[in-house]
């Protein structure tokens, strides 16, 4: 059984291991670098302050994913954010990848509805299993597979079949 993460050294290791997963999910969920930055910090601060004891690494990973989804939802759903969207859009830095095709794919993913976007991201970008995705999103594995199938079809249509290894 793991002890609560109190020492900064342990916390650094934890952040190193899961920062991309948390940040990427926050980015996929909010489509805002600024919000993703905030969500990223909040998630690990919550993990640190909660003193939560996890059964195993899988448990910790699931907790981080679920917390990221929840905190991201709070950001995107908050009244404050909705009212400040015009100003934020001007100040926010668009998510840019190194390669043009990467930006095309990201843009297509962002066009998906949230119900399809998060399973697609977690499955293809984070390479989680359908069971892990189901736990993180609080839905059944069957629903995850269905959303993956439909989301993939939508992406294929948007990307004209490019970048798909059929």
């Amino acid at each position, binding site marked *: 059984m793991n002890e609560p993460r109190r020492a900064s050294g342990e916390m650094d290791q934890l952040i190193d291991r899961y920062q991309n997963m948390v940040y990427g999910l926050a980015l996929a969920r909010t489509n805002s670098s600024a919000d993703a930055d905030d969500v990223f910090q909040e998630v690990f601060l919550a993990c640190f302050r909660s003193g939560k004891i996890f059964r195993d690494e899988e448990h910790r990973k699931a907790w981080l994913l679920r917390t990221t989804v929840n905190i991201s939802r709070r950001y995107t759903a908050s009244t404050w954010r909705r009212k400040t969207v015009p100003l934020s859009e001007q100040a926010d830095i668009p998510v840019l990848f190194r390669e043009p095709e990467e930006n095309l794919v990201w843009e297509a993913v962002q066009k998906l509805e949230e119900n399809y976007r998060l399973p697609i991201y977690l499955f293809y*970008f984070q390479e989680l299993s359908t069971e892990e995705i189901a736990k993180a999103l609080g839905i059944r594995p069957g629903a995850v597979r269905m959303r993956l199938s439909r989301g993939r079809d939508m992406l294929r249509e948007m990307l004209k079949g490019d970048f798909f*290894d059929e």
Partner: protein
Amino acid sequence: MNKELFASMREQMKPGEEVRAALTEKLSAPQKRRVPVGRYAAIAACAAVVIAAVPVYRAVQDHLKWQALLDGFHPDAVVEEFPELHSYVLADELGCWPEDGTITENSTDTGAGDRDQDMTDGELADNMLEAGFTQEDVDGYLASGWQMTWAKWWKFYHLAEESGEWTLEALLAFSQAEGLAVNTGEAPEMPGGAFAGDAPDQGEAVAAYQNLLARFEADYGPGRYPEWYGGAYIDEHGGLVVNIVEHLEPEGKELFLQIQDWAGTDRVAFGSSTLSLDQLRELQDRVLAVMDELGLSAGCGINEEMGRVELTLEEVNNAALWMLAELDPAGTAILVIVARSAALDAPAEEPTAAAPSVSHTIQPGGTQKVPDDAIADENGVIAWEPQS
């Protein structure tokens, strides 16, 4: 899909150095454990609600309970608030004094209507056996002829509790010292009930009363009376007095003549009462029901001479007084006698060998003949001689 592409993108999706540094700084800063103010506030609010809810709930439940009870007795009445408390009297010695929260000794009213309630043989036997007397003691006391009353019984009860003398001898001595009336042993079918010593002959009155009751039974059925009939009693002159309900009293003489005709004698006087005997009986039933509901031990009878219900209680509480006030808003139809206080207040007295004093006031009802084995005392009072 293109795994290399997604892997490349995943590698790029990481927080900036400054964001990671900011997080590290926040994590390194001494963390003051956040006080969950909201949680404590919620708990405090819940506790306050619970604390406030308990007395409110009890008050509401009590109110609903009493209101339901009251509504049960008066289905058409709407009780908006608790009634005033009913007055009561503390049984004291041979008399009683009114009690309105404080005892006023000078306000003694020992009229005939405030008499203590007699115990029947059965009631006395039950109470004696319950108190630890044997059946032989009961039989012995009943043979002695003393007429025990409720107030006197409770007085003896508390005295015996203090002295530990639960003996027939102590009870007989107490009865003599208290000057209890004498039970003739007769059970006349008369309203009220105690025998009077050198009373005038009551034979004619008793016969008149029985004639009257026979007529009522024939016309109205067993145990039923005309609405104008407020009860009857035999006065100190040995004459039958019939009470007529005040607001039903006729202007003419027809009813009075009719009653005399039914009684078979013109020696019938007339009094007045507020309630009819039927109403008094109904009130008696209600009072007993209320006392039963409240779990109070009570004796309850009708004093036809006074035209009221007389209730003897061992103890009394506000709930009982509320209910009684509801049943008797004017406070005139029910006389509440609390026996316990009389026993507690009264000083213990040494038994005396003096002959029992016998009331010369003829009580409602009475008896038409004196037992053959009765003797006369020095004052000519005829009574059962106590077998002490």
